[in-house]
Structures are given as structure tokens and as C-alpha cells.
């Protein structure tokens, strides 16, 4: 794994250009171009606010920012995973022409998504003032939470990139899994309010996003420290990271031929 990380680091310029061009290509040919990086998360938020506030008639005063702080990081996760599934097959021209660490391809999606996340935070910040979030030093936990999520996402994306190359059906499967996972995770609700109490413990331990998303809400909106169950996410993230690198290293040389 160390060798792999080193070889990726050596070819970081490739990663840099792929990310740059990915971001560039995404907004090309659009009238509003770059603005979409801000509009996308904003419109997504509007959708959910309409759904929850007007249709389900549930709302707390801080609901929009609670929702948004969880939604943003979730969006980073799903764009990374669904992007990774065909990250290798979609770059067949490059993959068959030059040798480079293929792990760079899913990483491109994760870093691209991270930029979207940053744009999202730019929208979130004024909203935190508008909806009167409880500002506190606990906000400094943000980089730690992002790091945990990054580590886990890298592992999961590497696995998706390998499986997605063998199995084109994964594109469809992953959409379903992610949607189900989304509803099972505390994005539109909080664990305390919606999960029956006797299932809560098991819920915290089964779904790493439970602790992670509640922690984002705690530090950004509620002025609380991260949920202690973020430790579950941290442990799982490290495990998935190691497994992901191991699996990718094992199958990397087969991928080129499988395309």
C-alpha cells in the first residue's frame, strides 16, 4: 500500500491535470458555466426543503442548515462512488496508451467532488448566519470529519472502480444502494427523532454515516462536539481504506485487459 501511495504521489501531476480538466469539462458548453457549482447544491437543498417542510410538514427552525450540512457531505460521497464505478472504463483511451497508477482515476472523482463540497460550504456559511446556527469552537472539528470521510470514500471508491470495470451493471446497482442508504441515513431527519430507541444502538454501529452525519450537524449547527459514534465511522473508514487499496493493488493489472 505504501508503494502504491508513493507511485500515486510521483504521478501527482497526472492527478492534477485530470482533476482540472474534469472540472473544466463539466461546466463547458453551459450558459451559466461555473455558476452551476453553486447553483447545483442550492437547488438540491430547495428540493428537500419543499419535500420536508411543505409536503411532510415537519420542520425545526434550524432545519435548512441541519439538512444542508448533512446533505453536502453525503453528496460528496455519492458523487465519488458513482463516479468511480466507470472511472476506469470511461478513460479507456488513456488506460490503454500509457502506464500510470490507475487508482488516480477514482481519486480524480473524489477530488473533483471535494471541490463541489467546498463550493457548497461557501453557500452554507451565510446560511449558518441567517438561520442562527450555534457557532462554537467545535466547528474546528470539521477537517477531522472530512478526513475520516475522505479515507473511507477512497477505500470504497477503489473497490467500486475495480468491480465497476468487471461488472457494468454496478452502475445501476450502486444507484439503488446509494438511494436506499441515503434514506437510511440521518440526512433529512435526526437519529434521536426518527429511529426507535431500541434500534438506535445497533443503528449507530451498522451505519457509519449515522455518526458522521450527526457529527457534521453537531459541530456546524448545534454547537456541540461530534457524536461519539463518529468513532465507528473512523474505524470503518480505515478498514475500508486498507481493504480498498489491497483489492485495487491485487486486481490493477487485470483491469486494463478487462475493459
Amino acid at each position, binding site marked *: 500500500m505504501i508503494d502504491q501511495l508513493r507511485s500515486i504521489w510521483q*504521478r501527482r*501531476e497526472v492527478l492534477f*491535470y*485530470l482533476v482540472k480538466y474534469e472540472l473544466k469539462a463539466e461546466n463547458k458548453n453551459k450558459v451559466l458555466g461555473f455558476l452551476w457549482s453553486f447553483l447545483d447544491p442550492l437547488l438540491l437543498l430547495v428540493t428537500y426543503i419543499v419535500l420536508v417542510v411543505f409536503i411532510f410538514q415537519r420542520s425545526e427552525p434550524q432545519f435548512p442548515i441541519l439538512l444542508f450540512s448533512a446533505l453536502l457531505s453525503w453528496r460528496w460521497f455519492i458523487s465519488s462512488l458513482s463516479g468511480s464505478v466507470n472511472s476506469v472504463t470511461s478513460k479507456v483511451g488513456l488506460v490503454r*496508451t*500509457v502506464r500510470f497508477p490507475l487508482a488516480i482515476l477514482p481519486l480524480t472523482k473524489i477530488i473533483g467532488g471535494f471541490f463541489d463540497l467546498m463550493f457548497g460550504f461557501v453557500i452554507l456559511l451565510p446560511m449558518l448566519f441567517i438561520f442562527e446556527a450555534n457557532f462554537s469552537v467545535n466547528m474546528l472539528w470539521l477537517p477531522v470529519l472530512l478526513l475520516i470521510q475522505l479515507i473511507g470514500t477512497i477505500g470504497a471508491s477503489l473497490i467500486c472502480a475495480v468491480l465497476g470495470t*468487471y*461488472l457494468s451493471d454496478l452502475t445501476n446497482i450502486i444507484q439503488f444502494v446509494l438511494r436506499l442508504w441515503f434514506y437510511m441515513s440521518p440526512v433529512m431527519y435526526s437519529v434521536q427523532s426518527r429511529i426507535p430507541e431500541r434500534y438506535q444502538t445497533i443503528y449507530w454501529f451498522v451505519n457509519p454515516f449515522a455518526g458522521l452525519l450527526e457529527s457534521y450537524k453537531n459541530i456546524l449547527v448545534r454547537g456541540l462536539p461530534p457524536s461519539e459514534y463518529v468513532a465507528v465511522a473512523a474505524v470503518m473508514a480505515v478498514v475500508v481504506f486498507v481493504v480498498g487499496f489491497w483489492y485495487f493493488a491485487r486486481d490493477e493489472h487485470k483491469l486494463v485487459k478487462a475493459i
Partner: protein
Amino acid sequence: MEIIKVTDLGIRFKMVKRKRARTRDFLMDRLNSLRNSSSSDFWALKHVSLSVIKGDTVGVIGRNGSGKSTLLRVIAGVYPPDEGKVSVEGEVSTLFGLGAGFQPELSGLDNIYLNGVLMGLPKKEIDGILDKIIEFAELGEFIDMPVRTYSSGMHSRLGFAIAMNVTKDIVLIDELMGAGDESFRKKCDQELSRIIGERTIVMVSHSMPTIQRFANKVIWLDKGQIVAQGDPKEVIQQYLTALRINAGSIQRVMTDTR
């Protein structure tokens, strides 16, 4: 000095009959690997041994599907050998067919940088050769247009310009003059003559005149195995004779050898 050494190389592909069947194959594969069966293997290259000395220009000939491109990809490091050993001492730049490695949505300029860094060139060095590439490719203002808008001639010129200017020890060329008019062909010839002997070149081509002009060694592949290698004149002669017998028609030879 041996710059490329290939010993008893074998490259195996799993036979996939239809693209749509990939999922089923994937599952069947898992089952088969439990039962240790490998009946669906296809060897694209088998028992291939060759060595290339620094400064050589090697021509690879053979009919379609004989494993020529696969061999180049192995030397480029894209396919790791399933059998045997491959050692390549030096850095490689590649020119694989029409626009392979180009990202259609990106501009020509972006593609130059992307291909440059992919071939291991730092950004600063790309800055240095940028003008030469653009000039050679004769793209003019098209350099800022997405590559998908390029004609096939423009594709060829850009690919060729990149491969020639990204100075590497080894240049791999698959079907050099895919598209391009007479004047471009001449330019390619000139450029190639310039680097011959200076760099090591392995080129795949169906054009016997091209091979005969540039190569000092020829390898004839058929069904993934080397039939003959050595002196260009002799090997090409053998190849053409075999083609005539096999195809049974001069016509085929004419189109195949152009």
C-alpha cells in the same frame, strides 16, 4: 546496450464473446475459478522473445489480430506479462493510432498537457516544447477547440507532434500515418529520419515501404507468435510470400500492404 528485452512473453485474455455477457461471465468466472477451469483463455502473445538495442528501429509486421498492438502495449507497460519477462530500460512515449489517449471534450492545448504529464513530462518541460508541437501540428486557432471537433488529419498531426517532441528514450508507434495528406506524410518522414538512430523506435505498420525505409530490424508476428525476425528485406519477403499463399489472391496482398 539492450534497451528492451522480452523473454518468452505470454499475454492471456479471457475470451468474452459478447460485451453484453460481461456480468454473466464475471459470475461464471468466479464459479470456474473455484473449479479451476480456464478453458476460455486466449493467448494474444505466446513464447515471444526479442531484444532491441539502443538506437534500433524495429518494425513489427503481421496480419490483423496477430498481436502487434498488444506487443507495443506490453512494451509501454500497459499490459503486464502473464508469462515470461519484459524489461524496458528507459522512458517511453507512445503514438497509438488515431487520437488514442485524447480526451474529446478537452482542447488540443489541454490534451497536449495531459498527454505530456501522462508520459511523465513535468509541466515546465511541456511549456518548453509547446510551441514546437503546435507549429508542427498546424492547428492554428484550433488548438483551443475541443479535440472532438478535429478532422482525422488534425488528430494524426497532433498525436504525431506530441510523440515526436516528448523526448523519450523509446518511441512506440502504432500505424504511423493513419490519416494525413501527402505533405504531412513528408513531414512525418523527415521528422522520423531525424530521430532515427538517436532514439529507439518500435513501429507497427502495414505499409511495407515505410518499414523497409526506416527499420533496421523486422519482427513478423502471426497468431501471437514470432514467425521470423531479423533483416528487414528478408523478413518482409517471407511475409509477403506467405501472405500470397495464404490469401490465395494478390488482391489481398495489395490492400494489406498498401
